[in-house]
């Protein structure tokens, strides 16, 4: 198979997972789709490296995380202060806590490293060793991030509310 055909197969198999991973990292819907697309484009450009990677999933996920970090850096830099903030209020979630909202808010309260570890371990279903490789940290560090993230999620008020059956 040629590069294009291989890539199309790869993209069709991974695009949704990449976009959803970006969503779980904290990107908006549109950002998540853009990040997944940008990651796939980079995969094509560096296709020999992607195909040669010992753990392709970890390698590609690392690319996604880097794209996400870059997008945050760009966004930070491109943002300009304004005296007229957009007149849109966030929805009041009181009493309307559903499971997705609860986990979204709980994830937003995790540190970036903990959040990445949780997404890789429990959404991408990676082993602790793969999580460590993807994040570029020792396995022990990945384990401690996961452990702290689990503890924080368990104590999170939104998750607690969800557990108590107050979710809709």
């Amino acid at each position, binding site marked *: 198979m040629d590069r294009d055909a291989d890539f199309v197969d790869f993209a069709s198999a991974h695009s*949704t997972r990449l976009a959803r991973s970006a969503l779980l990292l904290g990107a908006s819907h549109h950002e998540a789709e853009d990040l997944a697309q940008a990651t796939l484009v980079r995969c094509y450009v560096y296709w020999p490296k992607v195909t040669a990677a010992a753990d392709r999933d970890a390698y590609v996920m690392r690319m996604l995380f880097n794209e996400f970090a870059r997008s945050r850096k760009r966004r930070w*830099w491109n943002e300009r202060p304004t005296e007229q903030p957009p007149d849109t209020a966030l929805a009041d979630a009181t009493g309307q806590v559903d499971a*997705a909202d609860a986990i979204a808010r709980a994830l937003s309260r995790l540190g970036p490293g903990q959040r990445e570890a949780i997404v890789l371990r429990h959404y991408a279903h990676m082993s602790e060793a793969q999580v460590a490789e993807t994040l570029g940290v020792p396995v022990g560090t990945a384990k401690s991030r996961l452990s702290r993230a689990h503890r924080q*999620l368990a104590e999170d008020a939104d998750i607690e509310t969800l557990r108590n059956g107050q979710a809709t």
Partner: protein
Amino acid sequence: MTQHETEHLLKQLAQRLPEGSIAFDGVLTEAKAAHRRHMRRKRLAVAGAVMAVVGTGIGVPVALSSHDDGRGIEVATDGAGTSDPTASPTSMPGALTPSQVSAARTVLLTYMDENPGANVDTAWARHEPGTVKQPNVGECTSRELLRVNLFGSFPIVTSGVLDPDGVTAVDGNGSEQSSEGAAADPLAGTVTEVRLVADARTEKVCLMSVVTGSHDPDPRDQQIYPDTVVQQPAESESDGGVVLLDGTYRVTALVGQDGESLLTGPFADRLTMTFDGGQMAGSSGCNEVGVRYRVNGQDLRFIEPTYSSQVGCDEPPLVERLFEVRHVSRAGDIVWLHAANWMIVVELRP
């Protein structure tokens, strides 16, 4: 919170993004365009590398000779300029010994592209001083070799250019070789030989080794290849490979990702940068900016912006481009900031 609970909740959140939300056809089209831009940038990096030769090191052209040992064609620099296509690799001057391999850290090979007049390049990096990295598939190419540049911990050790006749030699015809003379490297302990092997069967060229050592000067030392720009560095400006950066400069070139000039618009001639012990302060046109940086020898990183005025204007994206900078080199008063692939990002003059 159990693992099952966590996975269940993450799945619920993830499913807010519908399946198949990305159009694959569009991705492939965009990916191909990005790949073309990437290859173009790599070609531009060659220009940056050549500029780096001018800027920071001792640019000495090296003759390349060829040898057919029955398995393929070996092309090697011949420090003494006595190219002998019948000689065995081991009889070449400056035979490889690990202790002689010292300074070279990166080798940039430039090949002829399929399109006439365009070139592509492949960088080969050696991370452990004093060792030789064996070639692998990723370091081979079926393209014709055009140019060799070596980079070392001391900026540029040497560079060589293979002329068109030499290019013919690497793809299987051992009877032809570089007809130009050689210029010997006058410094003991620097690179005197680059060995490449062209596999006659696959017509791939691989970097085999980099050899260092001293040799007798050649009477043709002063000969310069047509494509090679040679300039002695202002050695007083550097200290053992450490580029002295502190000072105030005008930004005389700002290069975009695709090699385009970004010094356009009404503020193009107002960009300045002042380096002072890890803190860069300057003007990006109509805004005052500050960025923290770290320099170590030829490695330079802009770490984080420390301040910026917020005047809205159409100014060149100086600070954004600074975050692409990974290396610095200088010749005399001129300083170049390079990307990771040595492509020039910024040119500075007093």
